[in-house]
């Protein structure tokens, strides 16, 4: 059941009605659980086993861990007087080992399932490539929908409970709802238990404003996704399927199309997710914060797919860089390589690991790995060049000039769009070749030879997509410059709000790229 399918729309409509009309407030989470499992069931019943096993192991081990931690605390408190520092330390060390083992068990099972389903064939493929001779045969596995997202949710839960920063959920069914909450199952966001649990089990009561906000947000999500993203996909497909026919200036077209397509597809999907949650009175963390208005790549990654970024920071980057081994390495390198370089070694190692993991997380393929590492390289480069920039900015007083800000935004946008080419061509060699062709044989004139009309998009399609992009851009621009949320502005002028809803709905209905004639393309992050 795709977000863009009619059954899904009906499913949500019926759910929202039932939710408010027939189910008492304290039982609403139960309805959501049934809906979520139903959603999964209709996608593929076998998925349920995977999500069930993941949720159950994380739940049980977290439960045991919390009990154990509580006992340990009580023991320490009760025997405070009798223990000297040494005994205390020893006790602490042994008990910490136990909690660590428990955590490791939970993570191995959860991440093991993820690794097996998603990466086993990638692994075999690469072994075959290296080993030569009789190739190993591929394993027939299913990749459960959204496994990367819900596994990351259980992992963060397990770690937080082990750390004691989060209270464990004692009701398995409630926990299962946290893992399987259907709007975010398809492409995130990756919610933290601490955040989501606040409203998931105790949603806000019916509030007309809230439901209206959610409703228009869903419409806007569909607008971005169906009118823009799914339309541009058609052109992108033509351009990237035969790269050698479309070189030079066309690669730039690919960059622009993909930037718009990916943004609209992904943020549109998140709008639908958060909008549904909002209609249900549940607060889901924002996943985007005007990413294309970033002035540098680091900022970009703080604004794009935020929940993934913070997940990697909190559970890989920080633990890695503040581990005792890393701190020791840091000391060593500072002594031997000098303060300036030494300070960076550990950060860079951690950062490298994060981006390697990010690349792999995006998909079992080398072009993702390369894409991740390219991000690492660019971030490092800009980090190293920062003092230089600073001086440059200082000398010309550029920071204060508005046009320079615009330039920085454009620069970051183009840089990120270039990196995304890896995802477009899905082949490292081809990507480099195509990227190069932009500089060797740009030939802008070719674009106007009528070839743009042969990509599968008509003049009308370009017009509609163009206008829609302008609308999306203007709404973002207002938010960026004035900080105003257009939704709120409209809601205060309610008839305008209704008019906007009607226009959005009709625009999606008529201009949406759905149904016969359009390939039903899935959300980009669907299988992650």
């Amino acid at each position, binding site marked *: 059941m795709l977000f863009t399918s009619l059954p899904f729309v009906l499913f949500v409509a019926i759910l929202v009605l039932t939710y408010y009309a027939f189910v008492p407030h304290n039982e609403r989470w139960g309805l959501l659980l049934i809906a979520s499992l139903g959603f999964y069931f209709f996608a593929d019943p076998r998925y349920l086993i995977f999500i069930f096993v993941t949720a159950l192991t994380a739940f049980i081990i977290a439960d045991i861990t919390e009990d154990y931690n509580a006992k340990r605390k009580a023991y320490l408190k009760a025997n405070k007087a009798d223990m000297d520092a040494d005994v205390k330390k020893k006790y602490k060390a042994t008990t910490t080992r136990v909690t660590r083992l428990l955590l490791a068990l939970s993570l191995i099972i959860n991440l093991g399932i993820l690794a097996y389903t998603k990466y086993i064939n990638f692994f075999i493929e690469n072994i075959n490539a290296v080993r030569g001779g009789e190739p190993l045969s591929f394993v027939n596995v299913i990749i459960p929908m959204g496994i990367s997202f819900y596994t990351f949710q259980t992992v963060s839960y397990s770690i937080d409970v082990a750390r004691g920063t989060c209270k464990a959920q004692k009701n398995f069914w409630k926990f299962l709802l946290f893992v399987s909450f259907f709007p975010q199952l398809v492409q995130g966001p990756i919610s933290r238990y601490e955040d989501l649990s606040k409203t998931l089990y105790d949603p806000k009561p019916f509030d*007309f404003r809230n439901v209206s906000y959610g409703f228009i947000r869903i419409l806007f999500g569909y607008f971005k996704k169906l009118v823009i993203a799914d339309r541009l996909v058609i052109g992108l497909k033509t351009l990237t399927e035969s790269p050698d026919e479309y070189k030079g200036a066309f690669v730039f077209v690919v960059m622009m199309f993909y930037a718009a397509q990916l943004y609209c597809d992904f943020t549109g999907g998140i709008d639908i997710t958060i909008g549904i949650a909002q209609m249900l009175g549940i607060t889901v963390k924002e996943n985007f914060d005007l990413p294309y208005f970033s002035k540098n790549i680091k900022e970009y990654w703080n604004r794009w797919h935020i929940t993934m970024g913070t997940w990697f920071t909190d559970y890989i980057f920080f633990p890695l860089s503040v581990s005792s081994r890393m701190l020791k390495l840091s000391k060593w390198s500072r002594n031997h390589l000098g303060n300036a370089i030494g300070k960076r070694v550990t950060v860079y190692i951690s950062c490298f690991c994060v981006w390697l993991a990010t690349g792999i997380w995006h998909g079992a393929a080398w072009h993702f790995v390369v894409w991740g590492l390219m991000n690492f390289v660019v971030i490092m480069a800009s980090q190293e060049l920062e003092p230089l920039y600073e001086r440059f900015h200082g000398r010309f007083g550029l920071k204060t000039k508005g046009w320079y800000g615009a330039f920085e935004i454009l620069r970051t946008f183009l840089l990120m769009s270039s990196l995304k080419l890896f995802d477009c061509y899905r082949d490292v060699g081809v990507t480099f070749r195509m990227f190069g062709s932009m500089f060797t044989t740009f030939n802008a004139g070719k674009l106007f030879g009528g070839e743009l009309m042969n990509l599968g998009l008509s003049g009308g399609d370009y017009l509609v997509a163009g206008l829609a992009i302008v609308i999306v851009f203007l709404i973002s621009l207002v938010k960026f410059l004035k900080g105003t949320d257009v939704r709120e502005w409209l809601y205060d002028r*309610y008839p305008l709000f209704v008019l906007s809803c009607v226009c959005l709905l009709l625009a999606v209905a008529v201009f949406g790229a759905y149904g*016969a004639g359009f390939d039903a393309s899935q959300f980009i992050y669907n299988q992650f």
Partner: protein
Amino acid sequence: METGAKKFTYKTLVMAVSTVLGVAVTVLALWFLQKLLVPKYQRGVVEGSMIEEYYDSNEPHEVLFLGDCEVYENISTVTLYENYGISSYIRGSAQQLTWQSYYLLEDTLRYETPKVVVFNVLALKYGEPQSESYNRMTLDGMRWSSSKWNAIDASMTDGESMIDYVFPFLRYHSRWDELTRTDFEHVLDKDRVTINGYYMRADVMPEAEFPSPMPLSDYTLPQSAMDYLMRMYELCRENDIELVLIKAPTLYPYWYEQWDAQVRQFSYDYNVPYINYIYLRDIMGLDMSTDTYDAGLHLNIYGAEKFADYIGRYLTNSFELTDYRQIPEVAQQWEDDIVFYDALRDAQLAELQQYGELRSWGANAIES
């Protein structure tokens, strides 16, 4: 305090009114857009208008023809009336499949019960759904009933879905890019394209030689098609309707002898008349150098009148049909049909005189 409360009610009122208005406008707009965006089948390809047109015909119909272009282009309903007083209707459509004919019969029985149902057997060669565009032309025009639902269910090809038939808007929304003048002119009402289901062509293109038929490794007519023929037979029996099977006198697509034998066997087993008019071309006086408009695939008005005259004689002799020329109320309606028929013929002849070909009908009239 009081003004506050008043303000509150005023605001709530505005919100309520605009919400209700918004919903109403949306529903209305979607309804209108659906009307605007669905294909109109009014020029060039008119075959999609035929099934719907039946519901506008008020005469009683004692003879009902079912089948594909081999009935709706080959039999002049006006000739049947003029020569024999037979009031008939052709519920034909492009590449009408056997189950579609069956469900169209079911559908027709909701409105009237003919005495004779004539089914053209060419479609028996198809055992599976064939093409979406033909499905649409046949099914979209049906009024909603369980028959329509079942007809759609039996006809859908891979990739089609019921919801697209329930809301044709979902299927045709992307036509906003291709709308023509006709689409705007016929949003709400459609012009008549047939005379009781007969699609007239007055141009002439002599029959050419057909390539020899391709040999098949298996000549068994598909079971699914034969099953629906059986259901058609049973439905007719239940309703005291005489079922007649015919094969129209046109030679292409090829009607294999082995197929003919199977239909003959059915005719023998169930005592249903079956007439293969391919063998009777000379007797009915068909001259395929003048009686076809597309090199022999279909008959033109001259051929259709000859075939209608011939089949009409058989129908009058074999069944007790009413001579509606004697019944003034019906005759009056038929007179109107004849006026339309003659006008249509004259208009086509005028164009042929002027241009040497038809411009407002057929392939030349298709808007792009």
